[in-house]
């Protein structure tokens, strides 16, 4: 045995590992990335001990590689997430997520009087601050801040 540390979530041959997801937002990440709708083999672990993040979650998706635009969609719920791109059981690339300049169809507008909360309108926001996150609604022009951020 070369590595005495036992892996809690088994390794993949090729694909993407998303690490350092806050345990509480794991299922939001799954939903945002549409992992509940794809046929790839996916393993995940949650409530894992992390030295830096408290309780974290990890997702391993076999045979799946993400575009930056897609992966940045999770930045709102997992800003610390790190991606390892795996080929032949080896990490060939590491990536971090970045809050995009605009977000669409992810967050809910916190303004109860906004049209997006009345009719089937796809939400759209301009990101006016990245840390902490603040979103300006394209429709009602009100700000939704990190505290009141709700994922659809």
């Amino acid at each position, binding site marked *: 045995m070369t590595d005495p540390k036992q892996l809690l979530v088994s390794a993949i041959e090729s694909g993407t590992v998303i690490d350092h997801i806050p345990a509480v937002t794991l299922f939001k990440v799954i939903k945002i990335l549409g992992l509940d709708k794809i046929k790839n083999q996916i393993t995940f672990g949650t409530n894992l001990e992390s030295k830096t993040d408290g309780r974290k979650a990890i997702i391993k998706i076999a045979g799946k590689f993400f575009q930056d635009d897609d992966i940045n969609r999770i930045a709102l719920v997992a800003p610390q997430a790190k991606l390892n791109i795996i080929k032949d059981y080896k990490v060939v690339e590491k990536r971090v997520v970045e809050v995009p300049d605009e977000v669409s169809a992810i967050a809910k*507008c916190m*303004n109860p*009087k*906004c*049209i*997006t909360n*009345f*009719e*089937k*309108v796809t939400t759209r926001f301009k990101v006016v601050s990245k840390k902490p996150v603040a979103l300006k*609604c*394209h*429709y*009602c*022009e*009100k*700000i939704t801040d990190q505290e009141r951020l709700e994922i659809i």
Partner: protein
Amino acid sequence: METRSLVSIDDLTTAEILKILKLAAAFEKNPVQDILRGKVVATLFFEPSTRTRLSFESAVNKLGGKIIGFTDSSTSSVTKGETLNDTIRTVNNYVDLIVMRHPIEGSARYASEISTVPVVNAGDGANQHPTQTLLDLYSIMKTQGKLENLNICMVGDLKYGRTVHSLMMAMSRWNTSFNFVAPDELKMPDEYKFYLDNLGLKYRETTDLNSVIDKADIVYMTRVQKERFSDPMEYEKVKNAYVLHDYMLADTKPGMRILHPLPRVNEINPDVDSNEKAYYFEQALNGVFTRQAIICTLLGIK
């Protein structure tokens, strides 16, 4: 202009604003023309606003256009549960332009994205009311002969007042000095003050109208709206905080003019009305010319 609809004053560049004001001045000289003959404009008022609607209808009628629409959603298919999406998709088949007032914020932006004809936002809840802002700008331009380097004193409800927020943001393009006069409960929200800070513009906040009124070129009065208060005691405390009387105008600048988006309740004493500095009724008339300019611009007629 790039967008054919007018949803928010920020949709317009400074050049576009000035062009609309110039056109409004031309309509003031010649308000009755036949240039909208054959055009039909819808006024969809999902909540009542008599003043705004009449102003738009007068603007269209004087230019020979026709008006269809409703004045209250209880008389439209909205009461049957129709979505805004469906209303707009239907009505845009009948008309050349839609003027819409709606209580839901962001409804005008949404309508403008669906509609095949230009949409003019005549107020979407507490959000935007750009034609009011343009008529305010026109009134300022007309009475002061310029928009640059003016001293504007905004009085009353600066917290919830949509018109003061839009006007402040618009006037910040022309190096304006602002004085904000409001009771503590109704002060200008921080986000707007940050906006001015970022532009490096000067402003002063005070609760004492008399200390700033003599320097003002424009005094912009607003009504304290009862419906904004959850506690009726709070309303009683501030409702008469700022009432403008004729004697208070004695030492003001000769060219100073008083604006008010109307309706007025008791924040301007009627003894001010006969003072030449009272301008709020002319301001309402300017609304007709400004709306003529907006409609013709969006239709590409002028």
